[in-house]
Structure formats: structure tokens, C-alpha cells
């Protein structure tokens, strides 16, 4: 029964030397088969949380159960049920992809035949069959990530932790990885705990999203719920003649309060939803204003982050790094 349990975290804290609380009392719950996106800037506490949930770092306070087992008292049972691809794909440059699969399978107790079959199956699934005999030192970043994912799946874990799995990948490799992670949850029922600093990734992939900042969860829900909390779309209009800017502002003011606009444009929060866009077009036409561009922006998770923290997610990490907060090394206690 344990295997059909997800993740439950209560009051989890991790304090480092100097009193820095990388994770400061978080609560969260991930249902079996769910993809949970843990979104936040660099240094927010995402990786520290993953290290605690994967038993690699003991918590300072609080409790966490993974697949129904306590991460502190039942670490061995947790480790048998989880797979993890941590932030840096830690691979041995002098071994081939196939040798990695063989080692990982062996350490998880697979028989020689299982090791071979499972290794070949996973290498094929992540598109590395042809490269399987080559040393990993010659792999690209995307290939390393895909091998890392395959290694995490060798022992058929029920819960998969992916710590920033697509950081540094090109768009093609990123969408291939998203597809595979989605398939794992959909077809194999694997619970996925995924950290990311990419809004798009959380939006596309996650069933539910937790937004973490400075060690606190500041918002949680489905991407749609979170955006709905923020409410309004914005509409941004750029007049063909820059001299018409005031007239455009006058017309748009009838549809909602002002919002942050593009450099040459005027924007308002749209009260009443996107169906009012047609009315705006008619009103601008009626006022005799010619517009060069008219864009509707649906609320994004960045808007959610901005609303909850007062900062945009883009660049929030760099801001934190200058404050001296950084992600810890695994298990360096």
C-alpha cells in the first residue's frame, strides 16, 4: 500500500551554518501519479527540499514521508521507492551509457538478464541506443540529462524527483524531456516532484504548482487556479502614430485600470475577460485611432510570482545570490 502513497511534508526546515534557513517550515502534499512543479528562483530552497525528500540531507525540523515512509527513520525504504535526477547530472565521463545502466541496475539488485533488458529498454526510450557504447564524456548536455533520467528509472520507482531537469537544454531537448516525463506520469502512474525555475515548464508539465521563495511556499494550486487568483488579462495597444498615445489611453481607460505596458504602448487590466477585446477594437476604431499592435496577455505564473513576492521571477535568483544565499552541496553536513 505504501507504494501508492505520494509525498507529505509538514513544517520542514533546513538550517545551515550561520543560521541560514534555506527551507523555512514548508508544508506540501503530492498525490500518487501527480506531477508537482516546485517553482522558484535560484537559492529559493528548491534543491534543499529535494535533498531532504531523497534522504540525502537530514532536515533540521519537521517531518516528511515519501511513499509512506519517513525520510529520516526509514531512509532505506524511501530510497528503494524513489528515483532521482539531481541538479547536475552526476555521470562518470570514463564509462559508457550502457556501463552506467549496468552499474545502476546491479546496485539495485537486478539480475544480469534484467539489467540488460531494462538497460536497453530505457536507453531506447530516451533515444540513446546508438550512443550507448560511447563514453559519457563525449555526450552533449541533453544526452547527459536523458541518461540521468534513464538511470533514475532503472528500478521502476513509484516516485521520481527531478531537480531542474531542463536547465541549460536547448528547446528541442527540453520538449523531448517534457514529453517523456508526462508519459511516465500518464502511462506508468509515476508520481513526479519536479523543481524548475522556468514558468513555462511548470505551466506545461505540472498538475499542481508550489511557488517557493526564500524558503517559504508563497502560493500553491493548479496553474489555472493560481492564474485565476491573479484574475485579469491585460490588453496592450501601440498606436501607429506615437502622438495618439493619450487618445488610446483615454479609450482603454473605459475597460479597466492601467497596467504595466510595452515601451511604446498603453495597457490596462481587462475587466470582464477576453471577450471584451472586440469591444476595444470597435472603441478604438470609433475614436479614429489607428493601432500598430493590439495584444492580449493572459495572466502567467510570473504574474502570480510577482503578485505574491513583489518581484518578477526573471532575475529574482540573481538578486538572491548577491544576498549570499546559495543552494547547498548534497549531503555536506
Amino acid at each position, binding site marked *: 500500500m505504501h507504494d501508492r502513497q505520494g509525498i507529505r511534508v509538514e513544517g520542514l526546515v533546513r538550517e545551515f551554518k550561520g543560521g541560514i534557513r534555506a527551507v523555512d517550515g514548508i508544508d506540501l502534499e503530492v498525490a500518487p501519479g501527480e506531477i508537482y512543479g516546485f517553482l522558484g528562483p535560484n537559492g529559493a530552497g528548491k534543491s534543499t527540499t529535494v535533498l531532504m525528500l531523497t534522504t540525502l*540531507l537530514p532536515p533540521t525540523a519537521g517531518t516528511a514521508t515519501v511513499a509512506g515512509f519517513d525520510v529520516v527513520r526509514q531512509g532505506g525504504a524511501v530510497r528503494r521507492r524513489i528515483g532521482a535526477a539531481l*541538479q*547536475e547530472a552526476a555521470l562518470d565521463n*570514463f564509462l559508457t551509457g550502457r*556501463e552506467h545502466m549496468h552499474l545502476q541496475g*546491479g*546496485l539495485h*539488485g537486478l539480475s544480469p538478464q534484467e539489467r540488460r533488458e531494462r538497460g536497453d529498454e530505457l536507453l531506447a526510450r530516451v533515444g540513446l541506443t546508438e550512443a550507448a557504447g560511447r563514453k559519457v564524456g563525449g555526450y552533449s548536455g541533453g544526452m547527459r540529462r536523458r541518461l540521468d533520467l534513464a538511470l533514475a528509472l532503472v528500478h521502476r520507482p513509484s516516485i521520481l524527483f527531478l531537480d531542474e531537469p531542463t536547465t541549460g537544454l536547448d528547446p528541442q531537448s527540453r520538449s523531448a524531456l517534457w514529453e517523456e516525463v508526462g508519459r511516465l506520469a500518464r502511462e506508468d502512474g509515476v508520481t513526479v516532484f519536479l523543481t524548475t525555475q522556468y514558468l513555462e515548464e511548470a505551466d506545461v508539465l505540472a498538475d499542481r504548482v508550489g511557488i517557493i521563495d526564500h524558503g517559504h511556499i508563497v502560493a500553491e494550486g493548479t496553474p489555472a487556479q493560481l492564474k485565476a487568483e491573479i484574475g485579469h488579462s491585460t490588453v496592450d495597444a501601440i498606436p501607429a502614430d506615437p502622438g495618439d498615445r493619450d487618445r488610446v489611453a483615454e479609450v482603454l481607460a473605459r475597460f479597466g485600470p492601467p497596467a504595466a505596458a510595452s515601451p511604446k504602448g498603453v495597457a490596462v487590466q481587462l475587466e470582464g475577460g477576453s471577450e471584451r477585446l472586440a469591444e476595444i477594437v470597435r472603441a478604438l476604431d470609433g475614436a479614429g485611432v489607428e493601432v500598430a499592435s493590439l495584444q492580449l496577455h493572459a495572466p502567467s505564473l510570473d504574474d502570480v510570482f510577482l503578485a505574491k513576492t513583489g518581484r518578477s521571477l526573471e532575475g529574482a535568483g540573481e538578486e538572491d545570490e548577491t544576498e549570499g544565499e546559495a543552494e547547498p552541496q548534497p*549531503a555536506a553536513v
Partner: protein
Amino acid sequence: MTGLLGQIGFVAGRSVRRTLRQPGILVPSLIFPLFLLAVNTPGLQQITRLPGFPTDNYIDFAVIGCVIQGALFATTTAGSELALDIESGFLSRLSLTPLRPAAILLGQLAGAVTVGMLSTVLFVTIGIVFGVQFDAGPGGVLVLLALALLVCTAFGAIGSLMALRTGSGEAVQAAFPLLFVLFFLSSINLPRPLIEADWFRTVATWNPISYMVEGLRSLIVTGWDGAALAKGFGVCVAVIALAFWAATASMRTRMARA
């Protein structure tokens, strides 16, 4: 679940494979000791005329210096490789499997010990080609290999301990010159009774490397010397036990399983 021996086997297989694929590790540990031997042997032949010197063929005496140097390289190989695994996160990957800390430690040593033993076999073979004669006979060669295996394991275990304590490959490399000083402050260049300076003789007497050297060397220059062999094997076992005990404790902490 894979048993302890099976786990050690998997980690050892990986360690040996990756070590042998790095000529940068293999070549210096083979070339450097041979270079010293080639320079010293003709230059120091006259030392054999000292009263009480145990052999009249200097290479008989000196070849063990190569074996010990090869073992010293095992310290840095084992330490640097483990430190690299800590720095790269590979140790975290291993920590997420049902692997026991002792299996990682023992398995990780395999690469370094393999290099140490390859160099030992090479040095002994070259020594025999250039006239080294084992007073203990062919059986002595086998006992020398067995003791050399323990010497390499002991130095490798020290390297692993340094890696676990510091987590840094640079720190392990930095310790190499200190070990080299310890190497020269032993009976490696002269039998202890022939060392004139009191302080040097005292240091050499307390230096465990002296007993490793004397155990190995006795098989060539003395024959079957039970006392020298017992001390040699005893010192190795003690160093291995102490280093493993401390390293296992450090490994448990690193793997967050304290």
C-alpha cells in the same frame, strides 16, 4: 538485494575500468619510480660496501623503493577519485541506491589497488631482469605480492579517508608531498641500524613505512624472516583497520546515514 560482496564487485568494476582508462593516472605511477631506480642504482652501488649492508647488489635493496612509491600513488589515486565523486555528485547517486557505505569504500579502492599492483608486478619483473634475486625463492615473490597488496590497500585507505574528510581533490593532492617526506624518513634508503643521525633513526623506527619496507625487502635480501614479515603484515592490517574505521564513520556522515 545484492549482497555486500556483489555491491563491492560492481563499485570495484567501475573503479578499475575508469582508472585504467586514464593514462594520466597510470603512467606517472609506473614511470616516476623506475626513473628514480635507474638514476640511483648505478650511483649508489658503492653504498653496499658499508659494513652491515645486507646485500652487495644495490638493486636488490632499492627495488622495494619502487613498490612503495607505487603504493604512494595509490593514496592519491584513491583519494582523488573519491573526492571527484563527492564533488561531482556521483557519491550522491551511489547513496540513492541500497549500497552500503563499506561497499563504496572497498569498491572505490579497487582501481587504485589495481594500479598499485600493476606497477608492483612491473617493478619486480624489471628488477628480476636486471639481476634481483629473491633469497626466499619463488614463494617469496608470491608473499611479496600479497604484502604489496596490503601496502597499496593501506595507502589507498588513507587517501580515501583524506578525501572523505576534506571532500576536495586538491587537498588530497596537496598531502602527497607530506607522504613523500614520510617515505624518505623511513628505512627506504638505508637499513635502520646504519642510519647515523639519532633523530633520523628514531623517526624511521616510529615510521610505519619502515616496517612495510623491511617486510617486503626481507624476502629479497634475507630470505624467510618471520619477524620482519609479521611486523610488515601487522602494520598494514593496523593502518587499514584504523583508516577504514575512520573512513566508514565519515562516509556514513557524507551519505547522511549517521
